[in-house]
């Protein structure tokens, strides 16, 4: 059984016919958005993290049909006009990238976090808590925390909302 899903992905409007059995991960990868990685398929590793309406979710345990009417962002869309986003650049500068398999998912988690905490002082513990749904085996998380700190340090004073 298929359903028609209309959604915005990385700023572009799509109308897609999706199999109701598909996960959002399946749907995005079929579109060529292979930054969305499957590391476990059960929401334990976070490698498939994308933003749905600005919130990080595990696309492996999210039905594709739920994307209807939503705005979705993946790591591909964060780099525009040949420039990396501030979060992506901070990961590069902090040495937060090793094997890179967890990286696109983490970039999206950090992006949601950074956008929500603009200009606010955050503790390392808050950063840890907000990233705890993404596993990384290469970095020991240290340089990723530094990248997020770097990003927040650069930002101007802006209001922020809740802390998750």
């Amino acid at each position, binding site marked *: *059984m298929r*359903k028609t899903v209309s959604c915005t992905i990385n700023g572009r409007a799509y109308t897609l016919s999706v*199999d*109701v*059995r*598909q*996960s959002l991960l*399946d749907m995005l990868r079929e579109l060529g958005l292979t930054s969305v990685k499957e590391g476990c*398929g*059960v*929401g*334990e590793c*976070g490698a498939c*993290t994308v933003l*749905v309406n600005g*919130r*990080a*979710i*595990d696309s492996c*345990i*999210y*039905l594709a*049909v*739920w994307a*209807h009417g939503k705005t979705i962002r993946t790591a591909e869309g964060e780099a525009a006009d040949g420039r990396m986003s501030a979060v992506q650049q901070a990961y590069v500068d902090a040495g937060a990238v090793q094997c890179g398999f967890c990286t696109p998912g983490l970039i999206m*988690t950090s992006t949601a976090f950074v956008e929500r905490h603009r200009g606010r002082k955050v503790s390392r513990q808050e950063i840890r*808590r*907000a*990233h*705890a*749904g*993404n*596993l990384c085996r290469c970095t020991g998380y240290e340089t990723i925390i530094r990248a997020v700190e770097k990003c927040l340090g650069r930002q101007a004073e802006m209001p922020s*909302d*809740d802390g*998750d």
Partner: protein
Amino acid sequence: MFAIDYYQQAESVAQAVALLAAEPGARLVAGGTDVLIRLREGRGDYARLVDINGLEELRGIGLADDGTLRIGALSTFRQVMASDDVRRLVPVVAEAVGTAGGPQLRNVATVGGNICNGAVSADSVGALLVHDAQLEIQGPEGRRRTPLQGFHTGPGRVALARDEVLVALHIRPRDYRGFGAAYYKYAMREAMDIATIGCTAAVRLEGEAIGELRLVFTVAAPTPVRCAHAEAAAAGRPLTAETLDAVAAAVAADVQPRTSWRARQDFRLHIIRTLAARVTRRAAERAGGKF
């Protein structure tokens, strides 16, 4: 791709009830963080789904005129954590759901799903039980109310007919006013884990003494348990180490921890005793008490 054999999107709660009644073996999928994992594990009994993910009527958190807090069953953990009403009136509920999984899970997992899947380790349940939450349930015959206390009937089992839908949770003012409460999730990791033991305590002070203690353990028996013996040991007692010792000593009569590959019984019981004292103390301190 999930091995889904039957799939219908419900447009309303009433339609969801009708679809469940009409399709034997069908189950609800709400946030999907349990159901889709079961499917991925190859569980054929999750292959027939009625999808209520999009039902806005099941969302929303608000206060009734009498001060009763209503939490829509489809509210996500994140929405519960972010709710001013929850944070102000029953902060332990926000604290508890904030320990579940990681941020991605909390952005989609629903409080209704956490209750209805019957998990013995459900992070929301202890906090809701100390506040004696009431369930609003819709079935073919209309809506009914029932206390959460007693809703769990065994591991993975709840007293919900297969064509019923949990609509909302209600917490009455008498069950939150004057309480200080705390949750401690004892797990092997600080995130992305299920509780080895979960302990929730709510304390109402009377002068310099504990007026009422409500103590709940999860993963300490086949269902989440209110601890009558431990509660009795605290009632009317002063805020002292001796009182906490008495709570820790009494709690053994309330729980039935078991040995499994995850943990041995003696270890679980030791942790239960330790937490009974520590979490009661923290709840009392949050109620304004000093030891």
